[in-house]
């Protein structure tokens, strides 16, 4: 199947056309302020025959939250009384964002215990009352969150059913569908999701019309990429836009892994300003630890563990003491650097002067300390790679991005440096090759490590198949087993993620 991957970044919109896992063509165009015309231009420059799927990775939803723009109000139904009233929804949000998002909140009796028993039975009358008030005041985006709902979602499901019945216009985000344990963080994810629903509806219909206008027929399926590097169907993306946050670095690492045919090792994406290091585990980015803040809101999203250092092709060079970056000429590289006739010494210039980088038609310039600069860049990159490594064993390093020339061919602890073709558009390649995933994050009790893992893997696989993965090609890509303190009966929280190619 031929697929097009598009990654909308802050600076560039990249596209890649793949046939199977082979890259046929790539394109790089500037990101436009309306986003859409950039996507159209990328599509225009690629062949559009026989395309089975277009997969888009976008930063639009993240940007909307960061800029507090284009967000709608959200109402909350918190299931958990008589507990939790002193920590209402939106606790800990930046005040300006909470102000934009805050609608009414209703606390209702209910909730679940860690072992699946009811904490209290759901107060259905209170839910109906909330639904009527939301309908009256025109609040459509509604978050339903209940304690331990990932363990037993029935109360959240029932509440959503009642709200839909009494408020047909409601768009309901149930917290358990955003997965993680940690009520406030899960509810935060719900709130971020719900406040993006109006924007999501318009963005996604615009994507669909861009695909239509590009002449791609009804046989072309449209997907967005998720934070974890897997596919999200467009219908699901309209309901869960929050799952597309931060897909950029993930796509870049996934693309690098596949272009270089490496599943375990390191990736460095050297751009104009920074070098971003990540680690690959089973071909997927290693996830960052614990809570992550998005637009100042604490969530438990699984995002790739990325370490950035201020070193890129446009990094400025300072003398005595010798220093590279973190300041960069950025997009002005082609005007301000020595190589392009400007007056600011940059890392690109040092690479040209030492012959590491061969550019045609470069004017004469004097950079006497160029080899010292390249030595320092080597040390910075080697140190960054070493910090991302988990063991002293040598691993391969995949170098991608426009500044990849700064990565030396040999480094301590690195078995080989790989520079795959199309490395400049690894992010779009990663989007095109995104797989379908399934995930389970739950507390199991009374089962040992092996049995709990087996059951979790089974549930995650069913989840992936339901989303369209080819059942015989599903692989486990992430396993976490956390025995829980101060709980009886061998309680353990198990998280398993599986993925497989689209069927």
């Amino acid at each position: 199947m031929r697929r097009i991957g598009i990654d909308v970044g802050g600076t560039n919109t990249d596209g890649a056309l793949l046939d199977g896992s082979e890259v046929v063509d790539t394109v790089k165009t500037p990101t436009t302020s309306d986003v859409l015309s950039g996507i159209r231009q990328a599509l225009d420059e690629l062949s559009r025959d026989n395309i089975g799927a277009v997969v888009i990775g976008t930063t639009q939803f993240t940007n909307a939250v960061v800029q507090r723009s284009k967000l709608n109000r959200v109402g909350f139904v918190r299931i958990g009384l008589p507990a939790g009233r002193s920590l209402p929804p939106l606790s800990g949000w930046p005040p300006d964002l909470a102000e934009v998002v805050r609608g009414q909140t209703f606390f209702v009796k209910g909730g679940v215990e860690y072992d699946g028993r009811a904490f209290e039975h759901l107060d259905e009358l209170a839910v109906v009352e909330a639904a009527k008030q939301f309908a009256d005041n025109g609040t459509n985006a509604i978050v339903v969150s209940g304690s331990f709902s990932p363990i037993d979602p029935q109360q959240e499901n029932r509440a959503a059913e009642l709200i839909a019945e009494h408020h047909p216009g409601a768009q309901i985000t149930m917290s358990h569908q955003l997965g993680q344990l940690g009520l406030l963080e899960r509810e935060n994810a719900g709130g971020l999701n719900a406040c993006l629903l109006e924007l999501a509806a318009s963005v996604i219909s615009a994507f669909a019309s861009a695909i239509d206008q590009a002449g791609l027929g009804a046989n072309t399926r449209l997907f967005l990429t998720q934070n974890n590097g897997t596919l999200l169907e467009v219908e699901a993306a309209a309901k869960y836009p929050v799952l597309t946050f931060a897909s950029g670095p993930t796509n870049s690492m996934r693309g690098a892994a596949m272009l270089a045919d490496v599943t375990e090792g390191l990736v460095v994406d050297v751009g104009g300003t920074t070098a971003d290091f990540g680690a690959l585990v089973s071909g997927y980015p290693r996830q960052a630890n614990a809570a992550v803040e998005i637009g100042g809101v604490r969530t438990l999203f699984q995002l790739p563990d990325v370490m950035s250092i201020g070193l890129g092709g446009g990094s400025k060079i300072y003398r005595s003491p010798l220093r590279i970056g973190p300041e960069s000429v950025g997009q002005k590289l082609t005007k301000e650097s020595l190589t392009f006739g400007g007056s600011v010494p940059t890392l690109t210039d040092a690479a040209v002067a030492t012959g590491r980088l061969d550019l045609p038609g470069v004017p004469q310039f004097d950079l006497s300390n160029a080899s010292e600069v390249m030595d320092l860049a080597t040390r910075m990159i080697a140190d960054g790679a070493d910090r991302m490594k988990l063991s002293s064993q040598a691993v391969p390093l995949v170098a991608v991005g426009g500044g990849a020339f700064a990565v030396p061919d040999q480094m301590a602890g690195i078995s080989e440096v790989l520079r795959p073709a199309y490395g400049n558009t690894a992010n779009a390649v990663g989007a095109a090759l995104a797989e379908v995933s399934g995930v389970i994050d739950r507390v199991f009790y009374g089962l040992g490590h092996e049995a709990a893992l087996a059951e979790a893997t089974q549930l995650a696989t069913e989840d992936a198949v339901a989303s369209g993965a080819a059942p015989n090609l599903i692989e486990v890509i992430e396993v976490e087993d956390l025995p829980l303190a101060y709980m009886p009966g061998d309680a353990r929280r198990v998280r398993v993620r599986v993925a497989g190619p689209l069927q």
Partner: protein
Amino acid sequence: MSRRLNAQDIDDLAVGAWILGTGGGGSPYLNHLNMQRIASTGTEFELIDPQELADEAQVAVVSTMGAPLVMQERLQDTSDVARAVEVMADHIGSKFDAVMATEIGGSNAFQPLMAAVHLGIPIVDADAMGRAYPEAQMTSFAIGGLQPWPLALVDPRGVEAVVTHVPTWKWMERASRVLTIETGSMAATCKAPRTGAEIKQWSVVNSMSFAIYLGSEVRKARAQLEDPIQAICAAAKASILFAGKIVDVDRKTTGGFLKGVALLDGLDEYAGSEARLEFQNEWLIARRDGNVVATVPHLICLLDATSGEAIGTETARYGQRVVLIGITAPPLFRSEEGLKYVGPRAMGYELDPTDPCQ
């Protein structure tokens, strides 16, 4: 000397208490958020020095028992903590003059503030651990041989219990643990009431103001772009034991406790070295290249190498870049009697105690 705690102090307490949690005690995040909301309305709390207490003053000793994960789902209300104190006051038939923490390490540091919101009584600048410990009987009060009963326990649904008598502190831990588990692995407790005289003699005095000071030093270091870990070491007279990254964490639960081992690979001046941390809810034993460099009762704290933020045994994950520091425990805990409760052997390790700062 008595002082008022304001919103800034509450932020600092969260940072300092989490460091003193030595990997356990539960993240103070949620309780901190709760108190931040209350402090942002201008509410202040009165913190009094134990020396100001009358000998016969009655002090309530509070903590919430249970699983940190349950606390993240069933968010605790301040009123639950206050209710535990009220149930105890009803039981003993007298009112409390002040309230104090059992455990300054981790989320329980905030419990006396949560009670004080409703009860309007001052908070005593002291606790009974000086850090976090895995079990409720691992306190200065137990080491001092003080009376372990009664105990009041409350859950938000209206379950209220009093354990009226137990033969030993260990029995109090067992009885209250069973009640806690049955109410969903989370319950607010008010421990055996203490007199002013008992607190002056047997508590870890000024531990709350110390936690606040520790947090304020981290805040100032970050604001001045200085190394927060150096600031912590200076404030707590701590020694740096290791710097590196976490390469493996192996956890298992045994008897309700999270046990395991974390392995660190050295970076910078520790490159080529490795460290091994054994934990039971808290970090208990630290080895560097096979040699023991710190044990309980001394404080072993694992900190994020950049931010200085403490890393818990439940949240430590591979790849984190960390600095390991050690702090000498207060004298009572390293006394012969103290080691029976909180020494390495009391936790199941055939090791002599090792002071990280000697």
